[in-house]
């Protein structure tokens, strides 16, 4: 059942309102910009698509169009930060932090400048644009950089909160956002703190058999799977790891040791992503059998978001199957 502390929306299964997480980025930027005049937004020719347009209209003096130049985008932002600004940079994740990875590494991470990198179009759910524009390795790229915080919000509301929280962190942050509309499950009152995972679902009675750990919009799919598993008398927990780095190891070990088996869910390559981060942490603390739901060493392709989520094995039925696979191996 839904965890009361998570204060999720009542309608999240039936008639959930839908919005892309990038919308939350746009709202969060305006909100943060109203609070802090040091905030500037730099954009690489994708103002509408990255949802920075509203900020650009509201604060034209603090909006900087860079053109299609993602390497410049990142290094410029480092310079703005060095001169006292709090810069956000917005592009598609395949280009930023994809194309400009080294600029981010040297001028932002190693240089410890508080630049917030907003990477749009994460995951195969980008849809028709195809593999070139579907970022499936961005969390891996960002996670291995020291000093970098990595956030993957589950819905538009959490994306808004993550954007505002990133603006006051004073450190380099990467936040990934999705293109497609996805259900809004969290409410204004749902707790959000960078680095603190939230348990969203737990068994009506008894102990859980499997802990489902999810990040990004697939958290909603994980909840659907958990409800389905409950109907089959397989009790689970679902925990939302919006922060992939630093990973909330305390909560992780709690839910993993309670269940004795883990399934991770992410719209990202299995190699180097959220599931890898979980495996690294559990291997050192409380090793349990694991299954990984995500993209298994393939590039994306064109299609509808729904077709692609199914093709790449990240639907609710795939999560249910993963739980069934790991169940007999529980610790």
């Amino acid at each position, binding site marked *: 059942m839904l965890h009361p502390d998570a204060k999720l929306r009542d309608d999240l299964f039936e008639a959930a309102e839908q919005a892309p997480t990038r919308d939350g980025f746009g709202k969060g930027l305006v909100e943060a910009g109203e609070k802090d005049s040091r905030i500037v937004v730099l954009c690489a020719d994708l103002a509408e698509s990255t949802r920075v347009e509203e900020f650009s209209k509201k604060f034209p*003096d603090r909006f900087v169009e860079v053109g299609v130049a993602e390497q410049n985008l990142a290094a410029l932002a480092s*310079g*703005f930060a060095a001169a*006292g*600004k709090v810069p956000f940079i917005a592009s598609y994740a395949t280009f930023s932090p994809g194309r400009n990875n080294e600029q981010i590494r040297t001028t932002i991470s190693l*240089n410890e400048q508080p630049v917030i990198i907003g990477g749009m179009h994460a995951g195969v759910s980008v849809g028709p644009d195809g593999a070139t524009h579907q970022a499936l390795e961005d969390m891996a790229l960002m996670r291995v950089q020291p000093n970098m915080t990595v956030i993957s919000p589950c819905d538009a509301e959490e994306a808004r909160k993550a954007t505002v929280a990133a603006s006051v962190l004073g450190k380099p942050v990467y936040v990934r956002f999705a293109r497609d509309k996805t259900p809004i499950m969290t409410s204004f009152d749902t707790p959000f703190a960078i680095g603190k995972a939230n348990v969203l679902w737990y068994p009506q009675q008894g102990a859980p058999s499997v802990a489902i750990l999810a990040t990004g919009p697939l958290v909603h799919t994980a909840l659907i799977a958990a409800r389905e598993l409950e109907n089959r008398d397989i009790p689970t927990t679902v925990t939302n790891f919006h922060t992939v780095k630093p990973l909330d190891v305390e909560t992780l070990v709690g839910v993993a040791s309670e269940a004795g088996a883990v399934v991770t869910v992410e719209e990202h390559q299995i190699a180097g992503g959220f599931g890898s981060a979980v495996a690294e942490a559990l291997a050192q603390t409380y090793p349990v059998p694991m299954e990984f739901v995500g993209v298994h060493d393939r590039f994306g392709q064109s299609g509808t978001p729904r077709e692609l989520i199914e093709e790449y094995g990240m639907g609710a039925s795939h999560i249910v199957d993963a739980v069934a696979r790991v169940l007999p191996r529980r610790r």
Partner: protein
Amino acid sequence: MTQLTDEEVRTLNDRANAIRQTIIEMLVEAGSGHTAGPLGMADIFTALYFHVLAHDPENPGSPVRDRFVLSNGHIAPVRYAAMAHAGYFPVEECLTLRKFGSRLQGHPERLKLPGLETTSGPLGEGLSQAAGMAYAMRMDGVPHRVFCAMSDGEMDCGNTWEAAMFASAKRLSNLVGIIDRNNIQIDGYTESVMPLEPLHEKWQSFGWHVLEVDGHNIPQFIAACDEAAAVFEKPTVIIAHTIPGKGIKSIERDYRWHGKPPNKEEAAAFLAELRTLGGQVTSEHQ
């Protein structure tokens, strides 16, 4: 326009020579590092730290400073030597270059050493950062300038030209680029590795005010910096023609000295050459 007296010019040239000696001393002690670029840029770094830049070694983070970004971080020895001679830290600390625990990393790191504006080494990124600083400073009405030293080799990088486009589009007249036009890079002469000419016209066509100077003529370089301050509608780039390895006749213009240090015997000979101005004077060390 600054008019330097003969005495002032002499003092600056002497400082540049002292900085060159420190560069040789630090490189031989480190056992690795770049020789040609630092020697070639010694005159310009001397002009910057001892005349052009508004800066305070006692208060490196002063809000009323000019910012100096070193894009091609591999010539760090000249920056460290100039900073030490300017009073940022003791000259003896230069001998810790590239050693474990040193503030003087092989490529400069802002968080290690006060007075560095950024961390640099990977080529092509400095001008972007300098442009970001210049833009932010203009937003805040900060009446100071941003200088960015670059190598000619990093004119190969697309990022350099992205920044060049940006700075002229945004009319960042508080930004001054300085190109060390020494014609060498690791794999050989720039014009054989990846031709840059016509470099002057390239920058001009990107919307910059372009000046060319003899990078070993300190008054000429200072005059160019003054001229840049008087250009209000666009950023300025100073193409400084330098001789890699300048001051040591046997290695001048030799690209093979781009990325290696002198050994002990070579260093002794190089220092003797610098201290006697190539045999023109008698050194106290003789």
